[in-house]
């Protein structure tokens, strides 16, 4: 009637729903981004650690080679000092004893000194120690002076004899030079020691740094693992909760569906029984009221006829027509009543009613009908079972006439101690399985429903012979006999 008014509240509800949806989406997204940081850390950190370790390794290697170089330089400095002292000792020994053999180590030692200094300088240059290079330069100078002094003394010895040479020795020139050399060498050695301490400290620091880093990485790794575990657990728990919620929702829905189905089923049963009751009521009314009226009319008509005796032939003719119409009316009323509610069923029982039904069907359709009934009537079936089985048979026969294109029908009723069984079978084209639950077949659904209402089973399918359809209905005997107050009762 009023679409804008109806639409208006729907729109906000819709948009509200959609915002809720996007909110949930962004929430998931940010949660994902939050997760990225630790993951990136977990990837970057080991790589960084690896490179740092490599760097440390290189530094350690450098430190190690620096130490080796330092040791070598220390040894070289000592060798240099020894060489100086050896040269001096050789000169002194020779001058003291004039034994030439004392001079044997002199030349090699003297030659060795500049070589050692060269190497040392080279090494210090490489190590980048300016002070050491300065000291070396000083040492070169001083050792040059010392060697010059030694050479001079030996030259004096050769030119002027021993006393001149010894006189040179006695000057404190040489002594001072050696002291300078020693001091410088000591300074160098001290420098080396400092350098080694430095290197060692760096080394130790590097080791500690690596240790701390590894420790940190390990802690982080553990932290990450724990966090992952927690996250995973939370995830799993959430999944479980979601699954449980879903399960609960499903159960709820199931329950709702079951309830609705029950309601529908109850409603359907109710409608069915209401329909039967209404049919019965209508049948009774037709029988009682209309029937009475018709019979009364017939009686009056008979009275009129007697008065008409030997009367006007035209009147007699008219009377005959009225009587005929009345007969037809009575016949019509009977048919209607019988179709509404088979009176045979209530008066003479199921077998009589089935016989009549099958007979009528055969007469109307030309079908060849075979019937098989128990010798003793399944007496005392309650009205509900009676009408159910009767309606099933009626529906089957109607379907057969409408759809089956059959030439033969068989109707069987069996009573046992356990159940009442109705079989209706035709030799028609057969029902296809996909049609057993669909449209033609509200009738089928209705039959099924009726039968299950009595705790019975209903099955429809291809006849065992392979041609045609077979409907097989079974109702437990206790439900078929038991008398309970039902809608159908009291109608007879």
């Amino acid at each position: 009637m009023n679409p804008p008014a109806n639409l208006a509240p729907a729109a906000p509800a819709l948009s509200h729903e959609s915002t809720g949806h996007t909110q949930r989406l962004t929430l998931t997204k940010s949660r994902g981004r939050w997760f990225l940081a630790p993951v990136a850390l977990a990837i970057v950190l080991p790589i960084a650690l690896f490179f740092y370790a490599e760097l440390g390794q290189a530094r350690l290697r450098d430190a190690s080679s620096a130490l080796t170089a330092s040791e070598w330089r220390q040894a070289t400095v000592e060798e240099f000092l020894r060489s100086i002292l050896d040269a001096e000792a050789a000169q002194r020994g020779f001058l003291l004893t004039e034994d030439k053999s004392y001079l044997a180590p002199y030349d090699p030692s003297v030659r060795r000194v500049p070589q050692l200094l060269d190497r040392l300088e080279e090494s210090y240059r490489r190590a980048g120690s300016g002070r050491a290079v300065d000291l070396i330069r000083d040492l070169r100078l001083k050792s040059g002076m010392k060697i010059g002094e030694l050479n001079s003394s030996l030259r004096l010895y050769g030119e002027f004899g021993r006393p001149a040479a010894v006189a040179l020795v006695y000057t404190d020139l040489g002594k001072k030079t050696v002291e300078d050399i020693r001091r410088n060498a000591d300074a160098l050695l001290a420098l080396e020691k400092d350098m080694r301490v430095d290197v060692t400290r760096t080394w130790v620091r590097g080791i500690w740094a690596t240790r701390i880093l590894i420790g940190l990485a390990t802690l982080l790794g553990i932290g990450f693992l724990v966090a992952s575990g927690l996250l995973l657990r939370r995830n799993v728990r959430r999944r479980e909760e979601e699954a449980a919620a879903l399960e609960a929702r499903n159960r709820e829905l199931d329950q709702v569906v079951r309830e609705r189905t029950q309601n529908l089923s109850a409603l359907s049963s109710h409608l069915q029984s209401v329909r039967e009751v209404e049919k019965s009521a209508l049948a009774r009314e037709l029988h009682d009221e209309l029937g009475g009226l018709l019979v009364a009319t017939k009686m009056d008509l008979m009275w009129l006829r007697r008065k008409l005796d030997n009367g006007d032939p035209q009147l007699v003719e008219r009377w005959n027509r009225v009587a005929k119409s009345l007969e037809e009316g009575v016949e019509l009323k009977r048919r209607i009543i019988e179709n509404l509610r088979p009176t045979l069923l209530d008066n003479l029982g199921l077998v009589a009613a089935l016989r009549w039904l099958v007979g009528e069907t055969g007469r109307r359709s030309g079908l060849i009908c075979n019937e098989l009934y128990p010798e003793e009537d399944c007496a005392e079936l309650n009205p509900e079972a009676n009408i159910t089985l009767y309606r099933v048979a009626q529906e089957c026969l109607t379907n057969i006439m409408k759809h089956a294109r059959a030439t033969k029908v068989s109707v069987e009723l069996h009573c046992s101690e356990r159940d009442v069984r109705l079989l209706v079978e035709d030799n028609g084209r057969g029902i296809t399985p996909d049609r057993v639950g669909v449209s033609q077949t509200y009738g089928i659904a209705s039959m099924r429903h009726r039968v299950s209402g009595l705790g019975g089973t209903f099955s429809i399918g291809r006849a065992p012979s392979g041609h045609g359809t077979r409907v097989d209905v079974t109702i437990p005997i206790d439900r078929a006999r038991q008398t309970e107050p039902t809608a159908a009762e009291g109608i007879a």
Partner: protein
Amino acid sequence: MSTIKRQQQSLQSLEPIEAPAQPMRVLLVEDSKVLTERLSEMIRQLPEVDLIGTADTEEAARAAVGRDRVEVLILDLHLRQGNGFGVLRSLGTAADRPSVIVLTNYDLPQYKEAAMALGATYFMDKVRDYDRLPTVLHELFIKTRSRG
């Protein structure tokens, strides 16, 4: 037309027989009020018949049969409570059981068979055969009185 004439003749010819014998005790079992009235009216006009009562349920009919020495039952199958077959069954097979004229709207052969099997003497359709009722009652009267 000729049947009707005969019936009228037979109705007239009944009258002389009335005097010597006791009228038959008849119970009308019928659930339609209109018909009960009409039929009662018709039956009361018959001299050989004493309508001792009417009933519209199986229970009332059975009670009346047990109580009132009914000789003839005019029985409708359709009743307000129970049905005519119940009444028929309750009569049993004794020799002195009342004769039964079933007068019903149920004209299916099954009903006739069932009623006859339960010992009904006549099975009549209300509409088609109702006007034969006086004749049938007369026949029964002759039969019972000649027997008695």
